[in-house]
Structures are given as C-alpha cells and as structure tokens.
C-alpha cells in the first residue's frame, strides 16, 4: 500500500479538513470497496459497515429465481466486503437493518405498486436507511461521517453556507437523481468520493490496489428483487404479509371509458408501459393512468402520455432554501429522463407544481421530479 496514486488525487478539499474516523457503507461491490481504498490512500482511518437489509430466505417461493451471488445481502456480498476490509486491513462490521429496511423501503415499495404508482426504492433506502440509521450508527461508533459509493458530489457553498448536491463528473454514472431527499444535516456528514471519478477510473484503482472485488460485475437490479420480477416479488410478499391483492383482475378501459380488456392486478402496470396491451386501429396502446380505487387501467395512444404539469409532494430543498416565488429549473422525472426546462412553483412547505415548457412523456406517479440548476440539485419531490 505504498504506491502513490497521484492521478486520483482529485478529491474535494473537504477531505483535508476531515481527519477523524470515517465509516464506509460497503455493499461488497466494486464501487463502495474502492471508496474504502481511496479514503485509506488519503490517510484516513476507515471503518467498514455492511448492512444486512433483507433475508432472501424469507420468501421461499422466490428461491431459485436467480443465481445466489446476485441476491441482496447474500452471504457472498458480505464476505466480499469482509475480504476487502481484510485486504486493506481496517475494521469491518455487519450491521442489521432488516427491520428498518422492511418498514421504510420494502413495505412502501409494495404499497405503492398496489396503489398504482411506480416507486423508487433506492431513494427511500438512501433517505431513510443509509443516511438515517446507518449514518447515525456511523457517528455513534465514533466516525465523523459516512462515505458511500454513490456517483455524485457534495460541495459547501461558502456564500449561502449550504451544502450542495452536485451531479457526478461521470454523467453516465450520475446518481444524484436518487439523492434529492438528503437534508443539510445528512449532506454535511456524508462523502461521495467517487463523484469526481469515472467508472473506468474506479475499476482501474480497484485493480491497482488489488481489491478482491475489482472484476466483480455490477448489479443492475433492485437489490431485494434480484430476479428483476417486481410482480412476482409483490405477489410473494403480499401473500406472506397478508396484504390483500386484487389479482382477481379488473378492467382495462380507453380514454372514453370503454372496456377494451381485462387485467390481472394494477401492480402489473406502470405508466407508459406498452407490452401486452394489444393494438387499436394499428396503433400501439400504452398505459396512460392507473386508478386503483376502481381497479382500472386506462390505455390510449402515445399522445395521451404527454403532459405539461404535475404536482409533487414531500418536497426537499437542498442547494437553496425553500423559495418564495416560482423558479426556473431543469427537471428530471425519472432516472433515464433528459432533464427538461420547467417552472417550479412552491404550493406549501411540502408541495410544489411543476410546469414544463414542453409536454413530457409518461410523468409517472411514485417517481421523483428532481430540480436541477445545471449540475446542482436544487431539490425534488415525489410525483403525485
């Protein structure tokens, strides 16, 4: 560990002021493992924390739907994190957050789907687990903060004295969309050392310090649904938890309220979805909206998906204080959405209305609208 890594010495100056113990949230993947290596190279005292979030054995009917190594909180991932800590020689602990994860991430995820919305579990996990009880635990065990493998940046704005969330330098890896819920208190105790690096640089550093996970493939799926089959997960979880499922089905109607088919549960659908809906007059049909109360899925042509406004709730302002007047921002309505210009009008402390300059396709309840000013995240909220 004597090699110098000048090419990576491009982290924020903030590291200079932090000299105490830093906790690293380690999933066992290459990103968070490299964070630990990077901080150690900077001379920081590191402690690794790996969260036990979900017991895959709980829903036995989902067993066998994917290779074991791709399951959330699989022992393999824990061992990977441990082997990285051993390799780099810093203390590492597995900490149990299964209860919090279920209450704050899994259950809401299922409830949202059953209510016809399309949730983002990762945002809940960040806001309500990683940067809440885990960050608190990091501080309780004597660390001054928590570093994670997120691709995003945190900056202190000396003029406003606010901590700002900024897009990652590697735009293709940027995860700022999932971090809009972080408060000033959370941001000032957090570090995202990968925000200045590209994925290639991260892999290169991992190889350079011989991390045992340097060649580990990336996991793309939601961690607790490794098969990628949300429907299967929702059904299995609901059955186990006694949540009633309307899988007896309901009507698929068009915009004129004419029944055009039947569906087997609103949780099978998401706004903008096309697959399996058939055709009308030669044109493809899409899910336009979901009405869980009437147990109905409304379908129509692509034009019907385009809307100019939406309301958001649970609004959190990051880089600026809660504005009193409407402001201009580029707004992203899903992870892979190209941000579009809009006016954001605060309605009250909790809600805002977003009015786009041009109609946007498939504004989906349950997803987040995140307000950007160029690279800075101004804030965000949940689409109603």
């Amino acid at each position, binding site marked *: 560990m004597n090699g110098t890594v000048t090419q990576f010495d491009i982290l924020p100056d903030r590291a200079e002021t932090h000299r105490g113990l830093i906790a690293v949230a380690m999933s066992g993947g290459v990103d968070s493992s490299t964070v630990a290596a990077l901080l150690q190279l900077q001379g920081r005292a590191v*402690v690794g924390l790996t969260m036990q979030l979900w017991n895959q054995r709980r829903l036995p009917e989902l067993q066998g739907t994917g290779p074991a190594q791709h399951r959330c909180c699989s022992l393999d991932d824990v061992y990977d994190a*441990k082997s990285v800590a051993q390799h780099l020689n810093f203390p590492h*602990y597995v*900490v*149990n957050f*299964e209860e919090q994860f279920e209450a704050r991430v899994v259950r809401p995820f299922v409830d949202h789907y059953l209510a016809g919305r399309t949730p983002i579990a990762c945002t809940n996990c960040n806001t309500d687990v990683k940067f809440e009880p885990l960050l*608190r635990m990091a*501080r*309780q065990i004597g660390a001054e903060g928590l570093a994670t493998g997120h691709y995003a940046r945190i900056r202190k704005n000396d003029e406003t004295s606010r901590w700002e969330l900024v897009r990652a330098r590697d735009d293709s890896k940027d995860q700022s969309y999932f971090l809009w819920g972080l408060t000033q208190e959370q941001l000032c105790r957090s570090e995202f050392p990968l925000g200045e690096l590209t994925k290639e640089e991260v892999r290169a550093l991992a190889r350079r310090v011989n991390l045992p996970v340097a060649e580990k493939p990336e996991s793309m799926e939601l961690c607790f649904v490794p098969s990628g089959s949300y429907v299967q997960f929702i059904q299995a979880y609901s059955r186990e938890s006694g949540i009633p499922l309307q899988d007896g089905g309901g009507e698929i109607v068009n915009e004129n309220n004419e029944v055009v088919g039947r569906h087997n549960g609103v949780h099978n659908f998401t706004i903008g979805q096309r697959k399996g809906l058939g055709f009308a007059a030669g044109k493809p049909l899409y899910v336009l909206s979901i009405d869980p109360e009437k147990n109905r899925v409304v379908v129509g042509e692509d034009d019907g998906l385009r809307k100019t406004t939406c309301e958001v709730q649970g609004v959190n302002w990051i880089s600026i204080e809660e504005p009193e007047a409407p402001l201009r921002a580029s707004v992203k309505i899903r992870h892979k959405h190209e941000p579009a210009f809009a006016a954001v009008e605060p309605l009250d402390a909790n809600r805002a209305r977003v009015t786009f300059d041009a109609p946007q396709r498939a504004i989906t309840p349950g997803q987040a609208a995140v307000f950007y000013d160029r690279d800075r995240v101004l804030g965000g909220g949940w689409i109603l």
Partner: protein
Amino acid sequence: MNRVYLDFNATTPVEPEVLDAMLPYFSAEFANAASIHTPGQKARAAVETAREKVAALIGARPQEIVFTSGGTESDNHAIFGIVAASSGAKQNEAALGGSAANRATENGKHIITTAIEHEAVLNACQALEKHGVRVTYLPVDREGQIDLDQLRRAICPETVLISIMHANNELGAVQPLAAIGRIAAEADVYLHTDAVQSAGKIPIDVNALGVDLLSISGHKLYAPKGIGALYVRGGTRVRQLLYGGHHQRGFRPGTENVAGIVGLGKAAEMARMSLADDARRISALRDGLQQGLLELVPHSRVNGGRAARTPNTTNLVFPGVEGEALLIALDLKGLACSTGAACSSGAVEPSHVLTAIGLPAEEARASLRFSLGRHTTSADIDFALNVVPAAVAQLRELSPTYRKEATANR
C-alpha cells in the same frame, strides 16, 4: 491497540499448559488410538487418561464419557439419541430403516425444554417437532429461572426427555438442576443438561444433580475448539447419531481426536483444581464491573442478576442505546464484549433469551453481555469502566429516542 477481552462465554484461549499437553499428539505421538501396535496403545492411554480427567470434573465414571466434536454435537446426540431410542420407536429399531422411517414413528413423543436454551438444543427440538414430536418450551421468569411447578405439570406419560440447560450463556442464570433432577427421577424421565456454560465455572456432580446426560464444550473451558464431551449415565438408552467404525464402543465412531481429547482432559483437570479460587476471584471482579457500570451509566440495570449466576457473567441494559452500535464503538476502542446472538452474516439479531425474560425488544437490543475469564485482571475491569460509560454517553447523545425520553422524564 490495547485490547481487553470480556467475551469468555463466546470462547476461551487454550491455556499454555493445555497446549503443551496437546503438542506431542500432533506429530511425535501421532498414532491412531484404535491401533493395536505400541504407538497406538500410547495414544489410547492418553485418551483414556483424558477421559478420567473429564469424568472427574463432573463426578462421573470414565466409561460414561463420550468425546464429541463439541457442545452442538453433544446436545444433538443427547436429544435425537434419546428420542430415537425411547419406547414407541422400539419395535422399529430392529428394522433400522433409515432416519426418516424411524422418525415417522416418533409421533406423540414429548420433550420438555426451556425458551432460553442454546440454538443447539432449540433447533434440534424444532427439527423433531417436524417429525411429530411434541415439545414444551418452559417459560422463565425475569431472572431467567424456570418454575418447578410448571415443569411438574408439563410432564405427561409421553414425555421421553427433559433437556434444561445448567447455566445460560447470555445471563449466566443457573437453573435449580438438583431439584429438576429429582422431578425427572420421580417421573422416570431422562434429564439432559447443556452444561457448556457451567462446566469449569461452578461445581458439577452428575449424581448430586441427578442428570442422565450432560454436554460439555472444550473451548469454553480453555481447551481448543472442535472437542467436546457427552456424559451418558450408565444404562441410559441412547441411539447413536453417527455410523462408522467401532471407536468409542461404536457409539460415537470416527478416529479419535487424540490431541483435542488430551487438551480437554488437561483443561478439565486444571478447571477442577482452580474452580473454587477462580470463582471467588472472578466473581469479585465481575461484581466490581457490574457495580461500577451501574454507578457510572445513568439508568443502567442488570438483566437477571438476582438469581444464581455463573461467577463470570453480567448482562446489563443501557436504555436508549443500540447494543449493536455500542458493541462496535467499544470494539473500536479495544474492548471486546457481546450482544445478543450472531447470525450467519455476523449481523446481530435480538436475543431470544432477553426476550424470554420479558425485556421489550428495544431493551433487548440495548443490552450488553460482559463475560470474564480466568486471566481477567482488575486493570481490564478499570479499562472497561473507563470506556463503557463514555461510549454509552456518546451513543445516547446521538440517539433521538433517548433524548426524547430524557426530556420527558425531566
């Protein structure tokens, strides 16, 4: 870093004398104790000497001692072995049609155990439940003690085994085993006790206690991991667990772990010699630690401290603290202790023992176990009294619930 280890209920170091006694049997005296030749006879002699020493620790006869791989095997052997051999399965025993066929006839048999047993007993009982065995899990009071009347009432004609631990690993609570033994004898039911946490800490006499089977683990009494013993009173009907050669009279086949057995023998001998002195000195240190923590940490309480306990154990609750975070904070400062039971990934799960003595889940999670050992010094206790109160204060400072409670109490 200065490291202080107060987790001797998890495991103990091999004593230098034990290691010295073992070393020849890895290389110079490597022979198989089952061999007829002279080197084999020397190994056999070492094994039999060790058997005598283990027997002496618990007041048994040497031929009543079976060496096993540890406490878990001993517990499993006692429980599965007694149930399989008990009447009801008798007619099927001749058939020997494999375990499934045997267990199918175990319908209706009954076992009595407690809610605070080690997983080696609990999970063995749960496995038997799937094969039709009925299991009564006796509750315990706030001190971790069973109620003898409840035990008496639980016994029925189908009861084939009572398995009640001698001392609990988390609380140190010691059950009234002699009284339990009398109840079992009156009812003519076999009594097994998991003595993994008591052997070497408090005196054990299998005859005075009236136990028929007793489990011992080497690594809890300064012998190595991977060696243990099961005491089986002469005449007790126990089905063997493993099938193989005729080692240990065929009852527990497998080439004997001579070095481990010698180590267990030496450790048992040392424990027998120093038990009274150890108990006196260690309990004084334990009491000092407990008293100091109660004084230095506001609102702290002892879990199960009012009944008989092993001399080395104290379990305290620090309200408003996550035990898991406290454990890590203390480890980072060099103090090793324990909370709850570890699961496969190493994450901490709420303790079934603390839940069983009536602690609400948040207090169970706010509890920490300190277990002292033969070489614990007063400097170790001073170190603990120095770091624990500071760590608890630091955790409480950052605990939203504790601050709320503290304000409410004002």
